[in-house]
């Protein structure tokens, strides 16, 4: 293995997963899951509760075996039960950070530094800085058992950053933090862009939207979508339009728009019309509907794409999937 500094030049993906399947008894938790995490990217891993996110993360870490499928982490093929070299360059923060019983915050960080064989002088400096940064210096010599959940999560993040890993796997890293703490952590994640790969699951979609450049959405163990965050948002921005017309022409406009084959639904929305296109038909809709309304004498004062955020996009992807499943 190359030293950490030289490893940034390696071109392979940070995580490559294909055909990953896992069942617990008769319960199929992951169903031929496949996606890639680009090196240096911040990759959000989204899905409702029970979608299989934590199971996928545990398989990546080698804590549980997959029934089938291939995984490569930092270019190294993954076999359950084997000690992997990539673990030297990876650090993981569980959803509820845990530490060995009886240790103080400083001792837990020393333990991590020693496991990763960080030079004693260097680790001493880094630990001091991280404790300070996460506002844990005063509590550093107290046992972790008396820490609040927020403090434990901050300590967990300090433990992850301490080793300056090439790949950070974070399971709900900000779930126990107050707004200030959340912003601090998101800023750190943003600073890591390009220097390390961050793969994190979160249910706070606004956070994912803010920091991630790529997202994978899964539901019931299956990948629903794998896209750049910006492309995902654009797709849904483009699929909805808000149309404002003279109030007395609202009903007429609605009935005219409904006749267009590219339109899936038209809903009155605060004196406007919310027009949803059929998938992939949004441009056609815009090209046809607006001229037709004008031709029919409707006064259109506004015709604009409806702003959406990742949360809307996320639920739309899930809804689409449920509709498709029902249709099958």
């Amino acid at each position, binding site marked *: 293995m190359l030293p950490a500094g030289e490893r940034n030049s390696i071109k392979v993906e940070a995580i490559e997963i294909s055909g990953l399947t896992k069942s617990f008894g008769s319960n199929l938790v992951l169903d031929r899951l496949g996606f890639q995490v680009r090196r240096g990217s911040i990759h959000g891993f989204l899905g409702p509760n029970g979608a299989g996110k934590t199971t996928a993360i545990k398989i990546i870490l*080698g804590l*549980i075996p997959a029934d089938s499928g291939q995984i490569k982490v930092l270019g190294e093929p993954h076999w359950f039960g084997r*000690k992997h070299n990539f673990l030297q360059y990876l650090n993981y923060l569980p959803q509820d950070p845990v530490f*060995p019983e*009886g240790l103080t915050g400083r001792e837990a960080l020393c333990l*991590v530094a020693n*496991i990763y064989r960080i030079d004693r002088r260097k680790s001493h400096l880094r630990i001091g800085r991280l404790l300070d940064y996460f506002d844990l210096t005063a509590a550093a010599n107290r046992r972790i058992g008396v820490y609040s959940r927020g403090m434990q999560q901050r300590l967990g993040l300090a433990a992850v950053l301490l080793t300056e890993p090439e790949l950070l796997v974070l399971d709900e890293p900000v779930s126990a933090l107050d707004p200030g703490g959340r912003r601090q952590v998101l800023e750190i994640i943003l600073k890591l862009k390009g220097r390390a790969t961050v793969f994190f699951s979160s249910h706070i979609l606004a956070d994912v939207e803010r920091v991630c450049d790529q997202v994978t959405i899964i539901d019931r163990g299956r990948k629903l979508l794998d896209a750049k965050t910006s492309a995902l948002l654009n797709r849904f921005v483009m699929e909805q339009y808000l149309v404002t017309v003279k109030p007395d022409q609202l009903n007429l406009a609605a009935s005219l728009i409904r006749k267009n084959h590219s339109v899936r639904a038209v809903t009155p929305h605060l004196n406007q019309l919310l027009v949803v296109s059929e998938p992939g038909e949004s441009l056609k809709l815009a090209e046809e509907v607006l001229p037709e309304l004008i031709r029919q004498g409707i006064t259109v004062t506004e015709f604009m794409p409806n702003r959406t955020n990742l949360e809307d996009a996320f639920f739309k992807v899930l809804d689409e999937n449920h509709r498709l499943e029902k249709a099958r």
Partner: protein
Amino acid sequence: MKVLLEKELKSNWRSFRYPAFLLVILFFALLDPLMLRYMNEILGYFATGLEITMPEPTPQDAIFSFLSDVSQIGIFVLIFASMGSVAREKETGVTGWLLSKPISRWQYLLAKVIILYLLIIAGIFACSTLAYLYTTSLIDQPPMAESALATFNLVIFTLLIATLTVALSTVLKSPLQAGGITLLIFFLSGIINMLIADSAAANYYPNTLLSQMKPLLDGTATAADSAGPLGVTIFLIALLVILSGFRFSRMEL
């Protein structure tokens, strides 16, 4: 490995599980020679009007009394102290957290076993030495080599029970299950020992190590008499470590 050994020692020391075991055997090392030395006086104080003739206490009796208490109450405490060594960490997620780092599953398990073995070996031999010195000052000097051999038998048997506890803690989900099943096996092994005491099977039965402690101290048995059960016990210890290690290396965490 050194890192894990340190972590193991700190965690178990601060949780007071291992100190509890040491305190219990220290208690018997100090109490048993004293009790035996003053048993007549104590009985005389409480039983006024009665004439009880007690044999004069021998130094071998004092050492045996200590070893015997450790082989029962000491082991009982040890089972409680070590029943969660792996199961508790699996339950809380510490095992998963540690094994997501560059640590092998075997290293993780062996660190636990090594620290527990060091505790047992150092603890029992140190307290046995203390009991020996205390007996010498209170009663008379016990035979040194025989005392060491009897202590050795106890240490090996205790290692077996400790290994069984850790092995069950590794393969089972909860500390209580591990502790409960170990206790059951411990009691059953004692009953079986009584049933087979006069048969040839006793020559290879681990509990015979405990049965041999008194004859060893009295000089009516030699080290060679314990060779059979000693070999079987060491074999069982190695087998339990290997089997639980293999099971653990394929376990979902």
